[in-house]
């Protein structure tokens, strides 16, 4: 039956991830020993098997209700909600490439055993590449990139000055090794999955930014009453929740499509999701700063950490302009050529 919601198991998975994030200091808490905390959280995620969520289980490939991408999306949303510095997204993306090119290589086992992974993109951050910039490159991470249809490891170089305080950007150069070829279909599927998971990161980032701003609006008093009782503030916050729920709805759809539809159809749906989420995420995070007022302009306030994370997610593998351009190409230009 057509049904769009989370199963009991998926609710529990999201709750577990949320609790694990809450049990460790994150960047949302500001001024804490974030790096060490991230290490602890990472180890407990590995121990719980959360890293392997997207590795398909070959033994029962016809089990319905198997939604690895959606499951990973639920975990990623919770991590982003706390601006967690855990290298989960990068690891899941790297694992996806490895699984499609060298599923039996030692690299997969290393990552499942707890070594973080990350992926390499070109300097525009909008395309997967063999050399350029490694994203979410945690300490000791295995960097995985692609050239043509060949998946490579890359050698990590100097760290860049990443605007996102929760996920390092590191120069990635030659010196790696070729691991194997990825089929065109698997490449398209990976692209769809990566876009859907970036959307999940944007959902969590926006949700976290809005929650923080709303909590502030409830507490902060001016004119003798909470600023959240003023309609100007209420309307701004309400508009952002509409955007966040829209992001969540389209992200669920994109994540579902990765595991349920043919790769090219899944990619078309993922582009729709990434176009929408990229577009509204910046607005939501900027609105959060506005609600925080002067505090929102300070380093201590978590608001800018959300905005920074959103800006990187937005750009990665193509912002809304790139995605809308792809939709135009696919549905208008190519269709007109075919018809003509």
């Amino acid at each position: 039956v057509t049904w769009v919601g989370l199963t009991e198991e998926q609710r529990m998975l999201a709750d577990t991830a949320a609790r694990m994030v809450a049990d460790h200091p994150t960047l949302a808490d500001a001024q804490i020993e974030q790096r060490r905390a991230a290490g602890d959280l990472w180890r407990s995620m590995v121990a719980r098997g959360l890293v392997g969520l997207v590795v398909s289980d070959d033994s029962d490939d016809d089990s319905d209700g198997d939604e690895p991408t959606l499951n990973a999306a639920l975990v990623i949303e919770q991590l982003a909600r706390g601006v967690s510095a855990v290298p989960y997204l990068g690891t899941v993306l790297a694992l996806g490439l490895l699984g499609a090119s060298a599923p039996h290589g030692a690299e997969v086992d290393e990552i499942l055993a707890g070594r973080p992974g990350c992926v390499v993109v070109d300097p525009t951050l909008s395309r997967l590449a063999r050399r350029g910039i490694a994203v979410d490159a945690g300490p000791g991470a295995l960097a995985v990139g692609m050239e043509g249809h060949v998946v490579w490891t890359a050698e990590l170089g100097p760290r860049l000055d990443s605007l996102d305080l929760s996920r390092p950007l590191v120069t990635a150069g030659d010196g790696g090794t070729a691991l194997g070829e990825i089929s065109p279909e698997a490449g398209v599927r990976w692209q769809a999955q990566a876009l859907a998971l970036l959307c999940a990161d944007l959902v969590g980032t926006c949700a976290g930014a809005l929650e923080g701003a709303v909590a502030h609006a409830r507490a902060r008093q001016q004119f003798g009453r909470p600023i959240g009782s003023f309609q100007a503030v209420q309307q701004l916050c309400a508009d952002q929740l509409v955007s966040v729920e829209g992001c969540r709805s389209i992200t669920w759809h994109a994540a579902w499509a990765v595991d349920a539809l043919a790769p090219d159809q899944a990619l078309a749906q993922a582009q729709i999701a990434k176009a929408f989420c990229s577009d509204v995420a910046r607005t939501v995070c900027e609105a959060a700063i506005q609600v925080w007022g002067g505090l929102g302009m300070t380093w201590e306030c978590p608001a800018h950490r959300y905005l920074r994370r959103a800006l990187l997610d937005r750009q990665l593998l193509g912002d809304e302009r790139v995605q809308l351009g792809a939709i135009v190409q696919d549905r208008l230009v190519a269709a007109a050529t075919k018809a003509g």
Partner: protein
Amino acid sequence: MDYRDDPAEATFRAEFRSWLATHLPGVPAPLGGPERAGFWRDWHRSLYDGGWMGLSWPVEYGGRGLPAMYEAIFNEEIGAAGGPPAPHVGFLGRALLHFGHEEQRRRFLPALLSGEEVWCQGFSEPDAGSDLAALSTRATLAGHQYAVNGQKVWTSDAAWADWCLLLARTDSSASRHGGISALIVDLHQPGVEVRPIVQVNGDSEFNEVFFTDAVVPTDQVVGALGQGWEIAMTTVGYERGPVDVGFTSRYARLVGELEQAARQGDVDGTQQLEWARAYVQVAVLRAHVMRDLSARSEGKAPGPEGSITKLLSTRTEQLLHHVAMDLAAAAPLAGGRPDVLSDYLYSRGASIAGGTSEVQRTIVAERLLRLPRWR
């Protein structure tokens, strides 16, 4: 999670699609007047005779007892076929389904579904718009009937309606919200006068309705006396659902038409990107509505979350009509494409009718974000 039709849904979709292929009206809806009312009545009758109305309504009142998701499929297929929007019987019917007495449901629901009897919603008044609880229309008990006095406004379809679901004050000593009851009023009586209002697009969908000692038998009170506010809130909860009012069928059709238009060689890249933005927005609304309807299939009536859906729906509608106007370029400004102009002007009402966007955001802020009340 599965967004795809199951075999039963797929069969339903295929059957409805082939029915539509031979039953679509051959002409577009006339732009106004009695011809327009007649057009809608015929379309409604035709759908009903085909067995397509009241899909998610209980069988005993003329429905088919199917899950709410079938209404979404119904809307999608009408849109894909380029048909006129689905008749919006859903939200008024829900008031009777949830709160009506058994005799009321049996008497009124089948004819509402079939289009034999047309209903309107008598809620807003000149001094009670967003502040609906300020309404002052009175129903005074005299023997076995009520005498209704007062005025309603923005009453869609009243000019050709047979019945009105009316909110009136039955107890002036009770609280603002507690003194309101919901009554079923026969519009064919001397105490009722309907004056059409000419709208910005020249159409006259809505009206003023004047009640002067209009008579309502006591057995036409819906629910309990004083329950009117709750009934009204449930009704508008459904009215805010784009499937319940047939809006998703309009959006699906429009985005498809605009896709054809945006493919033409003289359309520049900026306009094509704007079309893509609207296309994305329609997809977001669709995914969101399916999430909504799934929650409803678990037995939840639409709550404050419906305001999020309405705000998303409004964004979608207004963006679509911007794109439609821009793609039509100068034509609608110089007498060409009056349909595009009319629909664009009508779309400005999306953020006003059924509760303004400002009211929706207040509901979202206070009831979902739990921000302190402003008053």
